[in-house]
């Protein structure tokens, strides 16, 4: 059985074709093969949430997904959140304005997770936000400013500044 396989996948709107070892994680593929190092690795066994990416529209741990399993998939990483004109995603902007990050290590996973929450539940309660982010560990902020950031976007999208959440 060959220990390498060809995969073809769409990452942030761009199609890549690569040959990868079958045991390579999607996280290592994104970081080491595509040099998309915005996806961070904390624990590498699914606990910390730093490596969370979007796979076919659903958040997933890229450390618990093999690169070969992403063959044919559509992946969105932190690098794919900016708009075509280079402006920040509203949630990125909210994290900036509400001090939702300090060291920034957990932020990519936080953003991907919170975007999925806001898509499924555009007006979450504080408890909804805390529950949704419970699988993403932050060792700096104490979470309060992160929760504030997500709630700020929920408030904004309710009003006139409505902009579509990915």
């Amino acid at each position: 059985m060959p220990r390498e396989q060809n995969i073809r996948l769409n990452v942030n709107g761009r199609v890549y074709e690569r040959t990868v070892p079958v045991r390579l994680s999607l996280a290592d593929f994104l970081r080491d093969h595509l040099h998309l190092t915005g996806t961070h690795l904390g624990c590498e066994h699914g606990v910390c949430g730093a490596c969370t990416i979007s796979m076919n529209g659903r958040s997933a741990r890229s450390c618990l997904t093999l690169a070969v399993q992403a063959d044919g998939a559509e992946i969105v990483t932190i690098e794919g959140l900016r708009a075509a004109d280079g402006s920040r995603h509203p949630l990125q902007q909210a994290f900036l304005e509400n001090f939702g990050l300090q060291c920034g290590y957990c932020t990519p996973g936080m953003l991907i997770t919170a975007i999925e929450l806001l898509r499924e539940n555009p007006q979450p309660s504080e408890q909804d936000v805390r529950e949704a982010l419970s699988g993403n560990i932050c060792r700096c902020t104490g979470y309060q400013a992160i929760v504030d950031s997500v709630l700020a976007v929920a408030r904004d999208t309710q009003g006139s500044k409505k902009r579509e959440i990915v």
Partner: protein
Amino acid sequence: MKPAWFDYYAPRSLDEALRILADAGPNGRVLAGGQSLMPMLNCRLLNPAILVDINRLEVLNSLDVTKDGLTVGALVRHADLLHDDRVRHGWPLLFEATKQVAHPAIRNRGTVCGSVAHNDPAAEHPSVLVTLDGTVVIASAAGRRELPAEQFFTGILSTALQPGEMVVALRYPPQPAGTGTGFVEFARRLGDFAMAGAAATLTLRDGVCEHARLTVVGMGEGPFRARAAENMLAARRLGADDRNEAFAEAAEKVRAAVEPADDVHASASYRRHLAGVMTQRALETALARAGAH
């Protein structure tokens, strides 16, 4: 934190998957959602020579409801159950428990059948399957067999699955009228594995308990069916004056029966205490939903 080498197969048909599993024997592992298996591979707690990835087998991605009940195929993710109104209304215990499985990203990938096949003692799905009198559908190259949930779970991370076999579906019978269910668990952080939990169903007729099922989560060996408490509750009047005493007795029977172990998360005596508290809360929830006043 990288897995050791394995041969990777992503078969396109169930027959092909079962043939590969038969050839692999004890060296083969089924990869579905990967939310338990991949951490074990990354930490090198497991080192299977052959991984059979079933994610391309669309035939297993089925959530069927008939008059005989609910059938959950091997590719149904936790999140799929939470998006299904038939599950929410028809199997509320399963729905409530699934909400408490880990975190959103884990629920998006992890499968119900995978959780059952893994049988982590702190996991929700094994206990729910036992409480609801569910059945495990097992396939191998030699054919199919079905096992009642209680015969399937044999100990910590252990089941009746033999080499070459895989879980292809779970069956949950319909919930009888007059039944209320409750699932509660306790963890220090939201979404963590529970230190203790309980799943309960109560079927009432004229304020009397006709049928009770109670299973305790997190007590060491896998789902713990609390038969002594169930028997005590059967035929018991559960009116406003009687219920507290009955549920306290049930909790006492559970505390006397469970055999939790000490670990880094909780001492055995604390788990025993929690088992009683979870029992009472699950029964109270079930009773309220069974329509008691």
